[in-house]
Every structure is written in C-alpha cells, then in structure tokens.
C-alpha cells in the first residue's frame, strides 16, 4: 500500500489510484463474503460426515505391516492344537479372527467365515478372546468350527499384544507372518468379496 502524505487533498491525489484501490478493496471484500460461507460450509460438512457417517469405533491399527506379535496360546478346551507365532509364518497368506462366545456380532459373522472356509483354501486361524473354556467349546460345537487352529487367550493379554479392543476383529497375515490388514467388527460377505479376497490374491503373488 502506498502511503500518501497526511495533508494531501483529494484534488492532488487524482482520481485514478483512488478508484483502483477502491475496486481492489471491494473485490477483496466480495471474495471474503463468498469465502466465509464456503469455508464454514466446508468445515460443517467435514464435521457432519465425521459425526454421522464416519465410524468412530474404527481406529487404524498400529501393527499394519509389522510382524505379528510373539505369542503362544494353549488350545481351546477339548482341542488338540493351540496357536503360536510360528504357525503364522507358514508361507501361506492366512486370516486370524478374534472371537468369543460372549460376543454377539461374532455369531453374526460366523456364517461368513464358515462359507469362506468352505469355498476357499485360505486358512482361518483364531484367537478365542477371554472366553470361559467350556463356553468356547460349546459355542464351536453348536455353531460349527471353520477354524484351522484356535488359541485360547484366557487372560486377554495376547489380545492386547494384537491391539484388540473389541471383538470380532479379523487380521490378514502374509506368508512371512506380517500383519497386512485389520478388519474391525463384523466381517460381511461384501467385506470378503470386496476387500479380503482381492488382498489375499495380491499378497499371494
């Protein structure tokens, strides 16, 4: 901005620079008038999406692309084999599903896992999270057992190592035993077709 001497009168200053500045000022103000509501609408939109459409429960896993945590779990009551880290470094791409008999949504996704086990050769391993031993065995007997191996995490400590904060959760593990993806909540057929299977396909190459 050019400074004019204090005593300058309007006759001296001429009309040209003055009107230029005024035009500048008014167009800038007009821009402000447009930008303010646009900015507000943008912010309101983001907040609305986060508030209504977003899924606040889904926290990105800190373990993506990291090796699966070291653990060794005993079998579920009545089963022969448990689950340990070594089982995950099988050279196979596989799933690790966290489930419990007390978890309602686990029952909802159970048919999806069963179908996956029947129609594909992807091994589904499981961690039975904080379950009463006989409840777990009964649940599997009643609803079917799609799992290749199950480890019983009675204390929930291994679950913490996996960053589990709500069951069901499903991890995709690559051939080297690294966690490549985490699905939180009920696994639907759409999730399997749209995300899990394509990812497994890609990781197998």
């Amino acid at each position, binding site marked *: *901005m050019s*400074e*004019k001497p*204090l005593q*300058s*009168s*309007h006759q001296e*200053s001429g*009309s040209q620079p*003055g*009107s230029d*500045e*005024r035009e500048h000022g008014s167009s800038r103000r007009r821009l402000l008038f447009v930008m303010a509501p646009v900015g507000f609408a943008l912010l309101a939109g983001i907040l609305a999406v986060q508030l209504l459409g977003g899924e*606040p*429960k889904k*926290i*990105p*896993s*800190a*373990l993506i692309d990291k090796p699966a*945590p070291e653990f060794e779990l005993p079998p579920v009551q009545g089963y022969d084999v448990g689950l340990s880290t070594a089982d995950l470094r099988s050279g196979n791409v596989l799933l690790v599903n966290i489930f419990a008999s007390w978890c309602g949504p686990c029952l909802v996704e159970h048919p999806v896992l069963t179908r996956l086990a029947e129609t594909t050769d992807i091994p589904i391993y499981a961690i039975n999270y*904080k379950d009463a031993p006989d409840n777990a065995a009964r649940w599997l007997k009643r609803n079917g057992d799609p799992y290749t191996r199950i480890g019983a995490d009675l*204390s*929930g*400590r291994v679950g*913490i*190592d*996996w*960053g589990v*904060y*709500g069951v069901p959760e499903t991890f995709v593990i690559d051939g080297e035993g690294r966690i490549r993806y985490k699905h939180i909540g009920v696994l639907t057929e759409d999730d399997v077709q749209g995300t899990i299977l394509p990812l497994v396909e890609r990781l197998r190459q």
Partner: protein
Amino acid sequence: MSARRFLIGLALTATLFGATAAGAFSPDEPLTDPALEARAQTLNKGLRCLVCQGQSIADSNAELARDLRVLVRERLAAGDSDDDVTDYLTDRYGDFILMNPPVKGANYVLWFGPVAALLVGGAAVFFAFRRTRASRSSGEGRGPASAQAPLTPDEQRRLDALLDDDPS
C-alpha cells in the same frame, strides 16, 4: 440371647467387610509401593479406553480398561519407566490410546490448529472493526474525539478514496 444375636451380627458384618475388601483387591490390586501406585494412577488417567473412547482407562468400567490397568501396574512393578509403559501401549494401539496425542507430525494441526484459527479469526475481526471505526470517524467526524484526532495515513487514504467517489 441378645448377646448371641449381637455376636452373630458382628460375625456377619465382619464377613461382609472381609468380602468387599477382598473384592476390591482382586481386579485392580493397587501396588503396595505408594510412589509406584501414584505413577500407575497418573498413567491410567492419560490412557484412553478404546472401547468407550471418551474416557480414560482410570474412569472406565470396560473389561479392556481393567485389563490395561492391570497391565500398567504389572509393568511398573516390573521396573518399567512411564515412557516404557506408554511406548508398550502405543506400539500396539497407536497414538490413539493417549488421551493427549503427542505433539508431532500431523498432530501439530490438532494442537495448534484451534489456536491458529482463533488468532486468524480474531485478527480478521479486529481489522474489520478498526476499518469500520476508521471509516466512520473519517466520514462525518462524529463525536468530539474523532473531530479532534489527526488522521492517520490510512484514514487519509480512505478519506481521499471517499471524496473521489463524490460525483460533484
């Protein structure tokens, strides 16, 4: 008769108190070392309950929060520093588990964004207000103060602009 009743009552009360004391000890056993216990409680207040999200694990009744409290105490008792404990948990759950996200990377926006927005907004309001005042006082010279005060260069410039606007 009444003495026996009294004794039975006493025995029942003792059992009741014994039971509650035992109950309070089993899930979240406080550490015997008061310094360690104080550290555990401070840590618990800074760790988010991931199930309830708005609460710290110190405030939450969720099962996972309880497990994490037990874990925090165990690790402190095993000789971990406070940083060791938070690192252990952020390795597994990410920064989200901290009630106060660390001041780094993209979190700068989180920490300083609101302050920056307030400053920018405040500055905008301030200048808009000052401009209104300036144009008012330079316009007609309302009030004795504005009539006496000399014009600032900015006011003079605005005055010129206004006078140029005059069709006469």
